[in-house]
């Protein structure tokens, strides 16, 4: 009973925040007037209110039991016993493994199917390729470090942090060199941000091309990054505040990866980061130092960062003059497309998954915007005819993934699931048709269209596009 009351308080608190009475309806203790609920939320539970709740709960329980014609004893099931309960399991009857058998812990062997994977045929050389994160298996918003997507242009390295340097040169008073020792003495900050490759969902511009959310949206990850603001380093070097218009970030890999950033972006929220989810960056993700450019496509998050140059013109480097340019129907290419616009995708149920039976499902997915915070996510189960507002998990952070959930009772009939995110600029995630009307079908980049998953009557989910 006490637990029920405690649960009640949580339900009421949630209701107060969201101003949605619909939440209250779903709670099993749905027996309070909204006036009473609001009052309790505002002033808390005193003894008389506790007494009222207790009585109301008993009443509701009796009413529920009466309606189904069951006494509490009759709830016990007659039927086959579950051997998982009846049989003694090995892990109940033998000694488990000692500590530190794995000095660096690994997931359960039963999790081995959730791995980063390449998309067959997408690239021809694995050192210049992509591995996609298994979004279909993630919870919440944080990507486990070992499952962060990979994109290398000329292979990855284990760079010795004692041999790594960051140089700041160009239009600065004092051209500077930092060791990792020096950088890590500076006042660090930690922030959660998503990183999405500009080519994420790029295979789907013309038609459906890949089967699962891992391949449609898996060039997406979200971590807590730790480092110093780039603005702090630019201030230390004394960047030219009148003439500086752009910075170039350069990597320490064989490709000498280079990308231009406008100075406004560089001074805004860009970080020079070494930490990732509480530990050092993984080598595949730029160990020991990378740029974090919130809201901007992943290619600008230069890994193995070795140099920042301040200048007055953009550089038109290979990855901003040959690749990462957006092909438009008139034959022109959009250059320096950077912002990852508002986007969302349902991760369960999603393409390639198999539902086992009809009934209740929690539809869940991810939403994000390179322009700010997620304001709302709507979900359709009928291919976009009708929509309902999903619940957003908190905290909702700027330029970070936001997890959404919505209740759904599947009736076993064909359904098409879609999600549609809205960010705090008011921008609404577009349909693929709306995007194609402006950008055609031959671009590789910046496809943030609404994703559709079709559920067949046999429970199998597949990737489809709808008109």
């Amino acid at each position, binding site marked *: 009973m006490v637990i029920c009351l405690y649960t009640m308080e949580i339900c009421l608190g949630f209701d107060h925040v969201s101003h949605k009475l619909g939440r209250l309806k779903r709670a099993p203790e749905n027996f309070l007037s909204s006036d009473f609920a609001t009052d309790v939320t505002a002033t808390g539970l005193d003894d008389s209110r506790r007494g009222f709740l207790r009585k109301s709960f008993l009443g509701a329980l009796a009413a529920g039991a009466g309606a189904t014609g069951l006494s509490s004893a009759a709830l016990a099931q007659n039927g086959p016993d579950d051997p998982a309960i009846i049989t003694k399991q090995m892990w109940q009857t033998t000694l488990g493994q000692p500590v530190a058998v794995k000095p660096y812990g690994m997931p359960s062997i039963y999790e081995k199917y959730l791995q980063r994977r390449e998309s067959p045929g997408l690239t021809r050389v694995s050192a210049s390729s992509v591995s996609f994160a298994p979004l279909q298996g993630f919870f919440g918003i944080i990507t486990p470090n070992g499952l962060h997507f990979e994109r290398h242009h000329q292979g990855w390295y284990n760079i010795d942090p004692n041999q790594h340097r960051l140089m700041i040169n160009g239009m600065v008073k004092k051209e500077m060199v930092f060791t990792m020792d020096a950088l890590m003495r500076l006042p660090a900050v930690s922030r959660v941000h998503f990183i999405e490759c500009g080519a994420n969902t790029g295979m789907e511009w013309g038609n459906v091309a890949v089967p699962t959310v891992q391949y449609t949206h898996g060039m997406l990850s979200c971590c807590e990054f730790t480092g110093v603001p780039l603005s702090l380093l630019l201030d230390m070097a004394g960047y030219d505040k009148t003439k500086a218009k752009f910075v170039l970030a350069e990597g320490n890999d064989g490709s*000498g990866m280079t990308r231009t950033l406008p100075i406004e972006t560089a001074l805004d929220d860009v970080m020079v980061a070494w930490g990732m989810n509480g530990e050092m960056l993984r080598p595949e993700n730029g160990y020991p130092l990378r740029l974090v450019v919130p809201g901007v496509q992943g290619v600008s998050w230069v890994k193995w960062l070795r140099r920042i140059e301040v200048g007055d013109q953009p550089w038109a480097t290979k990855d901003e003059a040959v690749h990462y340019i957006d092909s438009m129907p008139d034959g022109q290419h959009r250059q320096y497309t950077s912002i990852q616009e508002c986007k969302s995708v349902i991760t369960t149920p999603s393409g390639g998954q198999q539902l086992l039976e009809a009934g209740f499902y929690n539809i869940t997915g991810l939403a994000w915007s390179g322009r700010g915070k997620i304001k709302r996510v709507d979900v359709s189960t009928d291919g976009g005819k009708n929509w309902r507002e999903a619940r957003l998990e908190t905290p909702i952070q700027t330029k970070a993934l936001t997890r959404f959930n919505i209740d759904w009772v599947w009736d076993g009939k064909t359904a098409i699931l879609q999600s549609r995110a809205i960010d705090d600029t008011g921008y609404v995630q577009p349909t693929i048709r709306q995007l194609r009307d402006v950008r055609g079908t031959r671009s590789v980049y910046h496809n943030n269209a609404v994703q559709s998953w079709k559920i067949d009557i046999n429970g199998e989910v597949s990737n489809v596009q709808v008109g």
Partner: protein
Amino acid sequence: MFKLAKSAAVAALLVLGVSSVWAQNTTSYPGVGRAATANEVNAWNIDVRADFKGLPKGSGTVEQGTVIWENQCASCHGAFGESNEVFAPIVGGTTKKDQETGHVKALVTNSQPQRTTMMKVATISTLYDYIYRAMPWNAPRSLTPDDTYAVLAYILALAEVVPEDFTLSHDNIAEIQNHMPNRNGMTLDHGMRTVDGKPDVNAVACMKDCVKEVVITSSLPDFARDAHGNIATQNRNFGPTRGADTTQPPLAKLPGAGYQLKVVAVATTSAGQANTGAVAKALFTKNNCAACHAANSKVVGPSIAEVATKYKGNPDAVALLIKKVKNGGAGNWGSMPMPPHPQVSDADTKTMVIWMLAGP
């Protein structure tokens, strides 16, 4: 302590005569970072911009470029930069007419199956910068500036932007820029450069009766069902869903609660692992054997050395000890019984027993 710190801070305030010393607001961070030397900046500052800022002096002929290309570039890019085997092709799809207009016509007519580098790139500096910084792919930074001019001259000759007897240099590269086939092909007229840019599409969040009829316009063809491997082995085998077994046709009907796919059963034995000391030792630790059995000294049970000595020369030792590990035993080594270990697989037990019998 707090009082002391506060009064010290107040004293500092008076001495320095500034209004805020509670939080240090510094951009100097004494002792952190140092000035770069000129040589250091020169070593790393190799970028070449579209206005040719940063371009090293030098020159190279098409003929020199041909030699370098055949030795170091052709294996990936093809003898004529046309190969699509390893990377997308570099040359092809541009015309003399494109060189006049600065717009590659094939990008509008879609007459080329694939966009080549020369069809896309607007800035010749980009090619110089990238070849110099990152090529050849497996030996980046091995080309000299003259090599780089020569390789670039060869590419330009293949694209018929320069004649076959051409010498490209820092003096004439700006002139060649004026002949780049897609030099006018880039646009900055879009809202995706900065966070406050204007989006292309303004969708409306309709909630009810938004479309009359839902038409599926694209789906994966049946033959592609298994193109990304078996999806069953890319999902958990528990929870609200499974992965579909894409090695099989779709199921005829809903599989029902608790459906298990045989293909994703996880083997929990380490059978097949090499019987090396390291593997056995790891198993010994993992299975808690080390809690009772040390290398040379008796702890709770006999030492590994004692076991090895006792069973030396006994042909049945392996089988006997596997049974003892599995079922437990008592009486051989004092009053403390050996507990049974049914959770340890036969293969693992055998690995450890053989390792023990070899002695510590």
